[in-house]
């Protein structure tokens, strides 16, 4: 069966520091991968999605970026965090042939201080 991992589970970072969140999927190959952010008052928002290694699409302009160095690895990064980057970051995957069923990881709680 497929499983999705995210780490760290929680993170407290000062403003201006860099960020790296990691997501990995097991038990499937060539998945579609997604990063969502859940922030207070702003609901759940799709940030990035990827259909393959090195293929990243951005949905929302911001100071975040995403990379997919391996088939089942998806990384969310920032060079300098803002207070507004605080939130709950969720990674999700779907089968490459069935993008309509997305399965979510446990999430990373990021607090920028």
């Amino acid at each position: 069966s497929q499983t999705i991992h995210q780490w760290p589970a929680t993170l407290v970072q000062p403003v201006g520091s860099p960020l790296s969140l990691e997501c990995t999927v097991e038990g499937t190959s060539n998945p579609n991968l997604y990063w969502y952010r859940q922030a207070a008052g702003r609901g759940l928002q799709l940030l990035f999605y990827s259909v393959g290694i090195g293929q990243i699409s951005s949905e929302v302009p911001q100071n975040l970026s995403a990379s997919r160095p391996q088939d089942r690895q998806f990384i969310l990064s920032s060079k300098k965090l803002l207070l507004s980057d605080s939130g709950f970051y969720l990674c999700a995957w779907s089968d490459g042939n069935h993008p309509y069923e997305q399965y979510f990881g446990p999430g990373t709680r990021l607090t920028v201080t």
Partner: protein
Amino acid sequence: AQSVTQLDSQVPVFEEAPVELRCNYSSSVSVYLFWYVQYPNQGLQLLLKYLSGSTLVKGINGFEAEFNKSQTSFHLRKPSVHISDTAEYFCAVIRADSWGKLQFGAGTQVVVTP
């Protein structure tokens, strides 16, 4: 453009009572519809989905939803709730032409009390 509206931000309900969570959407093209549940500090779990076919969809944990195209609604129901159903519930849609980009409603917090 499309939008997803969950009409209730919070729904208090007694244990063993029925519950209905309302969701309306607007879209100029066909959509696929989903309900997700989120327990505190956890990721989202897919409850049920409507892609095509029968408009009454049954999901996990005794939940069901009905797609009403004329009213552009996809309301979620459970005939008898348990304490463990306390969670936040999200309605979501994907446009048929948007490849898999989920758009979520604001969520409905369900609080089940004895």
